[in-house]
């Protein structure tokens, strides 16, 4: 019990993985974390020499969908790394101990690895009524999060609950549900929003921290750029249908059966930053749009109040670009709040006129017009 902690490579070797397997895994990690080929050596070095990172995982106001998503991580060796190579010393979902024994394990890690442990948070923290809306071991979530954050090396906020308050923070937010970044300062915070986040995005975020001892490059909302720098709309395989003005107009109509764009059905892809269109879900099997339902925007703050879900975006306050619809196929609109430059949410009225008769016959937009619109669209995206 007193021997030095084994490294991740040593663990892998003891589990029967060859050096070749291990190096391949390191390359995958690097790729997943958005690191260029020249950085693979760093990953190998990091995983060969580091003992397992002590990790504590808290559950507050949440539904455990993040934990469930996490265990869906697709590559077996990644699941092994996450479950075996980090030392998951506290997690209400999986740990053997309960009650005092669980709390003792938590405090042992917080004391022994002060300043070194990684803190993962699933769930928001209720601040109304003195915090009584979420108590664990007789203490409020607010009390627990404050104590644990003080000794954490970094905090990763899993899912929309911890990142932006999610559903319990939706109007009227009866319990004062608050995301972590509004409660904690002085400790680096990485937000990994989504309801839940994609498994490989969660694994990739941990891997980045593990391999490089630093938080990934973040955007203005504290999200890893590697996974949240692209709109679902820009990476959607149905995007050509949008550009061509080919839309589903009712669920299971002829256009739905052809896989046309779901924008008219309320798809939030144009205002949602996530990796769904690239990484897809459950080892790349599908993602919401591919399976016929619009994106509900679950990784964006306040998405629950940005509804109703089946009302398409253009009729929203703040998306008043209807006037441009007759002049340009696409334009730029600034989305309220977060300061995200959004892709034009024009209703494509003009485009739809052009191709109205062509939809059912599956005819495409005349090439010249399509090219014009693509150009306008590209320009819009940059705005």
């Amino acid at each position, binding site marked *: 019990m007193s021997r030095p902690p084994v490294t991740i490579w040593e663990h892998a070797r003891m589990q029967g993985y060859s050096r070749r397997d291990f190096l391949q895994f390191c390359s995958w990690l690097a790729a997943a974390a958005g690191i260029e080929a020249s950085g693979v050596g760093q990953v190998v070095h990091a995983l060969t020499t580091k003992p397992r990172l002590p990790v504590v995982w808290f559950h507050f106001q949440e539904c455990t969908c993040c934990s469930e998503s996490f265990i869906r991580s697709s590559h077996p060796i990644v699941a092994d790394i996450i479950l075996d190579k980090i030392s998951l010393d506290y997690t209400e979902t999986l740990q053997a101990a309960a009650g005092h024994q669980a709390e003792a394990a938590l405090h042992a890690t917080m004391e022994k690895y002060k300043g070194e442990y990684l803190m993962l948070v699933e769930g928001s923290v209720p601040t109304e009524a003195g915090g*009584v809306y979420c*108590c*664990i071991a007789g203490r409020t979530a607010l009390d627990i999060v404050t104590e644990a954050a003080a000794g954490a090396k970094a905090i990763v906020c899993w899912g929309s609950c911890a990142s932006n308050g999610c559903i*319990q923070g939706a109007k009227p937010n009866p319990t004062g549900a608050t995301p972590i970044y509004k409660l904690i300062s002085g400790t680096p915070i990485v937000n990994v929003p989504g309801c839940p986040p994609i498994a490989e995005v969660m694994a990739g975020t941990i891997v980045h921290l593990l391999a490089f001892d630093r938080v990934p490059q973040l955007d203005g909302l504290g999200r890893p750029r590697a996974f949240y720098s692209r709109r679902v709309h820009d990476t959607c395989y149905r995007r050509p249908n949008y550009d061509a003005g080919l839309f589903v107009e009712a669920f299971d109509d002829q256009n739905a059966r052809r896989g046309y764009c779901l924008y008219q059905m309320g798809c939030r892809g144009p205002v949602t930053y996530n990796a769904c269109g690239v990484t897809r879900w*459950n080892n790349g099997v*599908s993602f919401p749009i591919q399976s016929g339902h619009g994106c509900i925007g679950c990784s964006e703050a306040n998405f629950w109040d940005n509804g109703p879900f089946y009302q398409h975006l253009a009729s929203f306050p703040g998306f008043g670009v209807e006037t441009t619809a007759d002049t340009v196929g696409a334009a730029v609109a600034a989305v309220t709040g977060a300061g995200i430059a959004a892709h034009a949410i024009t209703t494509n009225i003009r485009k739809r006129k052009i191709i109205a008769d062509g939809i059912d016959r599956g005819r495409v937009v005349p090439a010249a017009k399509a090219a014009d619109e693509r150009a306008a669209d590209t320009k819009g995206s940059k705005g």
Partner: protein
Amino acid sequence: MANRVVIDPITRIEGHLRIEVEVKDGKVVDAYSSGTMVRGFELILKGRDPRDAWAFAERACGVCTTVHALASVRTVEDALNITVPPNAELIRNLMFCAQYLQDHVVHFYHLHALDWVDVVSALKADPRKTSELAQSISNWPRSSPGYFSDLQKRLTAFVESGQLGIFANGYWGHSAYKLPPEANLMGVAHYLEALEWQKEMVKVHTIFGGKNPHPNYLVGGVPCSINIDESNALNAERLAMVGRLFEQGREFVEKVYIPDLLAVASFYKDWGAIGGGLRNYLVYGDLPTHGYRDPSKFKFPRGAILDRNLNEVLPVDPRDATEVQEFVSHSWYDYEAGDGTGLHPWAGETKLNYTGPKPPYEYLDVQQKYSWLKTPRWKGHPMEVGPLARVLVAYASGSKEVQELVGAVLKQLDVPVAALFSTLGRTAARGLETKLIAGWAMEFYAQLLANIKNGDTRTHDHTAWHPETWPAEAKGVGLTEAPRGALAHWIVIKDSKIDNYQLVVPSTWNASPRDAQGQMSAYESALIGTPIADPDQPLEVLRTIHSFDPCIACAVHLHDEHGRYVHQLRVF
């Protein structure tokens, strides 16, 4: 003072649960179950578009993801008189089956197994004997001596690293662990295999609903379209994948889960007389074979059993205001007409009012209000819901399939029918229904293919999609069986908006506090009489509580016989 033991948090569950029990002469004599977290869903749903409700409701739980979405779309469809096309019903059934297969297996291995399997004992196992044991109960291929030997080396290295992770401070070496080291090693192997397997099973949801957890549902049908001549819809490739996933699912259930369950049960037959608790069982039923509106043709029949009388299954009507009612006598809520009132969910109220001790606290005042869960009753009776209730109601309703399976298992374990009413019976019932569902899924799958072959590809009924077609006021109720038991949502729609939305969930039935008459709900009742070998290590309490597969947020602390907290830390 009585010997109060507090366990907070109860781990290996969903949510935040706290259990306080009183121990006398090595047995639990009193028990209190408390949900310690609340989010106010019902308040948040008010005023929303009813077609959006499924997405909100689904977030009630990410472990039994999908079940609240299903209950919700059925609720709205009931209110608006929508009948979904047969394909949508079949796809919902397939998603239901996939959820059960994944969820029950994860419960057995990842949430419940460590109550029965001693991980540390596995270090002493003989890999060759482990292989013989594994091959004697199943022809599952991963069973060679080398396989178990490698695993044991891996486990040894893990323990010797000193970083015990999720196994730290477990109850290893507890006298209540009875499995030989070889069975423990096999259990650990299957714990890891099941972790890898479960992520495959849920791909059924990804195909039909786009993601898991929290796949998409739709009022009026399902969002995915069928078009066998299109790459952007359900076609032969997508359907073949669904078929293959269910085949793999059935293989794992039949070759790993069920043999393990029976092997483990054979060492713990004494738990067939512990943890029975309530004598009443409630089932809403599910898996329609002739449409949701005909419960008489459900695979899981609807009905209630009182006083363990298996000769009579009573009818259940969720619309009858005198049947399902919720009470708040011991819950942190206020009712306008007073806390002694019972409210049918259509008239339900959700007004939070915490009156418990100011945190940090050591004990709850269990004589007053002590939980965020309301207390539901059926015709005034506390009811157990879940796998045991489903198996009993199906058995008593005369299902040959269920009677034969239950009979065979009782015979194999050589235990009487009464052994069903127990902690072990609950855990076994979960396995048995998983086996049934694995077979039913193949029936639904074949029917879906047959429908498509016959030219019916509809997946959505659009007639009542637009709010202009709705009545000014409508009421609905949607029923399902979540893996953890009977689940229902009630809605009142006014002027196209949600006026009231109430969820009565399985863990509310099972984990709720006492009612005004002092009647215990299922958890509290089942804990009475549970033996406690060592109040420092409440392994036995966890066994019974986990046998219900809790899905809430709770916490439990332990106290010694003098009412003091037990702080002792056990490390192996």
